[in-house]
């Protein structure tokens, strides 16, 4: 078998980049990923809006473990492994709810929602050496950035903000979209695919596949009528290296399908409110580009203007992946605009939508094609590698992911590509007198 050191070939001189297909098929590499990547990186758990009130909880699988994501009675976010310290059973078997106490049904050990062991039936049968304080629910390191909570099982992981590097700016671009906060819409898309998880990381930031894989989606838009984007002439988009394996591809704003006068008015109003709050340059970056952000190792936030998809993908086997999709929504828009965004989001991204099933099909077909791995050993990811500024339909963003993957697996260093993320939109223009006459006449 090929050793991990030669799985990623990164030839800067010739502008060639390739990945050995065993990275998608090998059981040995799958196990190594569990240790070196999922055992050490920051992994997304959930969004604070999913547990809005004290004692709210959600359970979910993160990095192969079941996790309780809860808010304790003081309102602090807590992340705990869902496994009794006595014999291992899951102490919470509900998907979501509101509880102060999690009681293991096996022998009745009970924990409060800060993880402390508060009750052991017939507890005087333990020796003095038995310390209840050491038998609370296991709490991995957890940190929250702008509402997004992550955990890590790695002792050496840097602080979350350091880890996120320039991906922070991209999180800010979704977190700042509402004056009253962003929230996860009820309803979760849990599905699987018969393909390696890294194929979906690539696909989540792949501008090149849009018109081939999603041709029927764009034809649907044309059939129903497209309202063009609000900002014209945006060039060819760009891929950016955000550091630590995170990357983004930014493309020109998409047109909107089936937009009524009411929705158009609400969209224009929303934009004018954001311009007032954040300035034109930042609003344009926020609302009038699409951004496919991937965060190493296994999270994507995709803002296609008509909706914001939050996605994780965890490997179950080299050729099987567990996928979760959520929809992030601005709180401060009209109910009609919320419904419009939900409809668009599930029509595009849902596993029953008009786009995502074709992505899943594509990735499963790649995995099937890897059966020829002995004859065709390498996949190519060189597109745009020798150009000064890779465009939205190049593959810089995937190379960033793979360099970090390689670094995590082998200890090699991940040398950045391209220029650092352009944050010029954050600079407010010099103060000038406000011209009331130029306002659009929108009222609150």
């Amino acid at each position, binding site marked *: 078998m090929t050793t991990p050191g030669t799985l990623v070939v990164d030839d800067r001189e010739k502008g060639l980049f390739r990945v050995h297909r065993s990275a998608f098929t090998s059981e040995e590499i799958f196990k190594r990923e569990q240790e070196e990547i999922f055992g050490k990186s920051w992994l997304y758990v959930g969004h604070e809006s999913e547990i809005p009130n004290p004692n709210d909880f959600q359970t979910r699988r993160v990095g192969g473990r079941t996790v309780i994501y809860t808010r304790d009675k003081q309102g602090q976010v807590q992340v705990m492994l869902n496994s009794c310290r006595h014999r291992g059973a899951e102490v919470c078997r509900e*998907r979501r709810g509101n509880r102060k106490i999690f009681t293991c049904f096996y022998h009745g050990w009970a924990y409060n929602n800060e993880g402390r062991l508060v009750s052991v039936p017939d507890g005087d049968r333990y020796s003095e050496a038995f310390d209840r304080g050491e038998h609370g629910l296991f709490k991995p390191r957890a940190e929250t950035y702008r509402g997004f909570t992550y955990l890590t099982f790695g002792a050496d992981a840097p602080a979350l903000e350091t880890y996120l590097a320039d991906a922070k700016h991209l999180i800010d671009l979704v977190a700042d979209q509402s004056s009253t906060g962003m929230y996860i*819409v*009820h*309803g*979760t*898309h*849990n*599905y*699987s*695919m*018969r393909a390696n998880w890294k194929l979906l990381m690539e696909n989540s930031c792949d501008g090149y596949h849009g018109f081939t*894989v999603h*041709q*029927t*989606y764009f*034809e*649907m838009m044309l*059939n*129903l009528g497209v309202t063009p984007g609000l900002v014209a002439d945006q060039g060819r988009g760009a891929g950016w290296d955000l550091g630590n394996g995170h990357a983004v591809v930014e493309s020109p704003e998409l047109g909107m399908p*089936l937009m009524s006068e009411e929705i158009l008015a609400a969209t224009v109003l929303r934009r004018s409110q954001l311009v007032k709050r954040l300035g034109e340059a930042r609003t344009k970056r926020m609302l009038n580009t699409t951004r496919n952000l991937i965060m190493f190792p296994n999270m994507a936030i995709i803002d296609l203007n008509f909706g914001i998809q939050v996605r994780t993908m965890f490997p179950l086997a080299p050729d099987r992946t*567990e996928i979760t*999709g*959520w*929809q992030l929504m601005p709180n401060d828009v009209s109910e009609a605009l*919320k*419904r419009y965004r*939900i*409809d668009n*989001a*599930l*029509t595009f991204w*849902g*596993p*029953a*939508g*008009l786009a*995502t*099933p*074709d992505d*899943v*099909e*594509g990735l*499963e077909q790649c995995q*099937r094609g890897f059966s020829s791995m002995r004859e065709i050993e390498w996949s190519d990811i060189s597109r745009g590698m020798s150009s000064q500024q890779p465009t939205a339909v190049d593959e810089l963003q995937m190379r960033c992911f793979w360099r970090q993957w390689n670094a995590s697996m082998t200890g090699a260093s991940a040398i950045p590509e391209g220029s650092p993320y352009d944050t010029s939109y954050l600079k407010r223009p010099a103060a000038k007198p406000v011209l009331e006459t130029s306002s659009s006449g929108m009222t609150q």
Partner: protein
Amino acid sequence: MTGVLSAATLTRPDVEDFLFHEAALLDEWRLEEWLDLFTIDCVYEVPAPDRPDDDPAETFALIHDRRPMLEQRVIRLKKPTAHAEFPHSRTRRLITNVRIISADSDQVRVGANFAVFRVRNGIEVTYVGRYEYDLTCEADGWKIRRRKAILDQDVLDPHGKISIIL
């Protein structure tokens, strides 16, 4: 279904005939004819698997198609560029436990159970759940105003997708 059409006289065998005919159209990929069974103001819904009781208009559901999107879904599925269904899956629908739940002057609410088998590339998956239909009477027969497929699966594993009409 000819003769006098009214909710009052509709029997369970009538409803079964209608549902079995619909299932055959879908299994035979006669999707344009299937579309003709719907009213202009129809809705086809599949709720979020973890929120089966919530309104698909207000949740991140799986499907919430009004007539224009339902037409586009059908147009898309008939194209070779609808990759997830090219070549087409074979499907087989078993529809049982058909009940008339309520009837008023112009609308009948119907419930039924389903098992939909999808076979493609040597892989078989089964979707299990129940249907809710609102049927209404138009000049040329009974039409579907609302068709809701509520899945029992809370995770689409190993299905991966719902690329067929459920």
